[in-house]
């Protein structure tokens, strides 16, 4: 356990070695939130408007909720695994008395902690400047289930990253391409980080619910807003837990085959 605590500390400190990169990453996040905020603010500028099942304060809460949920769930270091494999650096880690999976999970957690600190600062600044109407969830059980759904989402995204990062075992040149397609394009649109998925027709939503993506961002925020309650909420959490098991099994299978096929080019 101690070695993973050290990995956490080193990873945390490493973020500050590239301060400008980190600050620019946060500035970019804020810019993206501003676009979404102004879009929905304009659409809901008519007093008392209700659209797609949202009131103005709930949709603005959704947008602001993205700041925290994306900091928790989508900020991850594990996409660097593809680079490790493509360059052959993974061999160094496999030889060490360290579980490679747990190593990257620890690094992910340190990145999330740092991003969460900055997300809190950004949230406060944007809240003071924009003075948005905000929906505060008061039900403690709902808040608890929201945090549970966030934890599950973090793990689902981690597993997705590890699965996609395995592509370079067979095609070293395709590491970034795979990530671009899955973690940039598919996750951005299908997780609800660009727009709430319930603006889409029910038929499309039902198709999306067969993928793990809605459980990354959309589902946790819906839980917080109280839009998913009771049996549906527990069903959603159960499905996301099933996704963890399923993705875990796929990841193990792919990595087992990948390590057998791997030739560590560049080492």
């Amino acid at each position, binding site marked *: 356990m101690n070695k993973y605590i050290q990995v956490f500390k080193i990873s945390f400190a490493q973020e500050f070695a590239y301060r400008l990169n980190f600050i620019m990453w946060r500035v970019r996040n804020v*810019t993206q939130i501003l676009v979404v905020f*102004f879009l929905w603010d304009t659409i809901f500028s008519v007093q008392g408007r209700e659209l797609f099942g949202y009131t103005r304060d709930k949709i603005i809460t959704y947008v602001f909720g993205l700041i925290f949920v994306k900091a928790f769930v989508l900020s991850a270091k594990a996409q660097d695994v593809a680079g490790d494999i493509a360059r052959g650096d993974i061999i160094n880690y496999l030889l060490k008395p360290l579980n490679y999976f747990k190593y990257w999970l620890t690094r992910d957690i340190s990145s999330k902690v740092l991003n969460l600190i900055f997300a809190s600062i950004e949230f406060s600044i944007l809240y003071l400047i924009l003075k948005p109407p905000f929906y505060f969830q008061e039900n403690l059980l709902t808040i608890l289930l929201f945090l549970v759904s966030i934890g599950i989402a973090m793990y689902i995204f981690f597993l997705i990253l590890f699965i996609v990062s395995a592509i370079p075992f067979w095609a070293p040149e395709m590491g970034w391409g795979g990530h671009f397609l899955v973690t940039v394009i598919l996750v951005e649109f299908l997780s609800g980080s660009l727009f709430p998925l319930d603006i889409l027709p029910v038929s499309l939503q039902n198709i999306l619910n067969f993928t793990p993506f809605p459980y990354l961002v959309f589902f946790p925020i819906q839980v917080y807003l109280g839009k998913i309650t009771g049996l549906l909420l527990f069903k959603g959490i159960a499905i996301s837990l099933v996704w963890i098991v399923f993705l875990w099994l796929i990841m193990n299978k792919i990595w087992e085959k990948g390590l057998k096929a791997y030739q560590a080019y560049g080492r």
Partner: protein
Amino acid sequence: MIVLAQKKVLLIFLVAKVFRIIFYIIFLFFLVKGSQTIAGYNSTQTIFFFLSFMVVDTTAQFFFREVYRFRPLIVSGDFDLILTKPMNSLFRVLMGGADVIDLITLPPLYLATYYVGGLLNPTLLGTLSYLLLLFNGLLLATALHIAVISLGIITLEIDNTIMIYRDISAMGKFPVDIYKEPLKGFLTFLVPVAVMMTFPAKAFLGLLGFSGIIISFSLAAIFMFISLKFWNYALKQYTSASS
């Protein structure tokens, strides 16, 4: 040519870019279907604004992909080798590596824009203004890219600057009327995203007056002048890393 040799890589990036455009159009379609309008524009108009943004943004990215490879040249000192060659160094670092993937996505994008534009029953004057202002938007994009690489020579920081530019220009996906002041003013005069992306579509719809067109061309001329001056200044400040 290197990209063409890696067909799988080419395919995966192509699929990702096509997905991005399709997903965004689906999002805009259902958004405006539910809300009726965005800042007074209906779904066809909103999609046209988005496609106009994509035309300027993707065309600029097609031409200026080499900018994303500029930092290693500065840091390693290989920029010296470019400066000594009998080719304009600005042209080489700006346009020396056009993106083949965008070359494939551009024709269908232009066709889609033409089709959606046709649904809006434009006038001849509106169409001519649109084409001129699209070209003007590309000039502004050129000026901004020159400013970014000039700043990169002085500060060695390009990657983050170019991504900040991309994020700010992404605000042009929607008509800038959705933004409040002072952000709207910032997007019109300081980083003229409105002039690059929104004004062409507004001219097409007959919503941009003569003064708006004059302001657009004037801003492009001013930005080009300043950026070229900045480039010359940056070259004088360049200290080679290798020699």
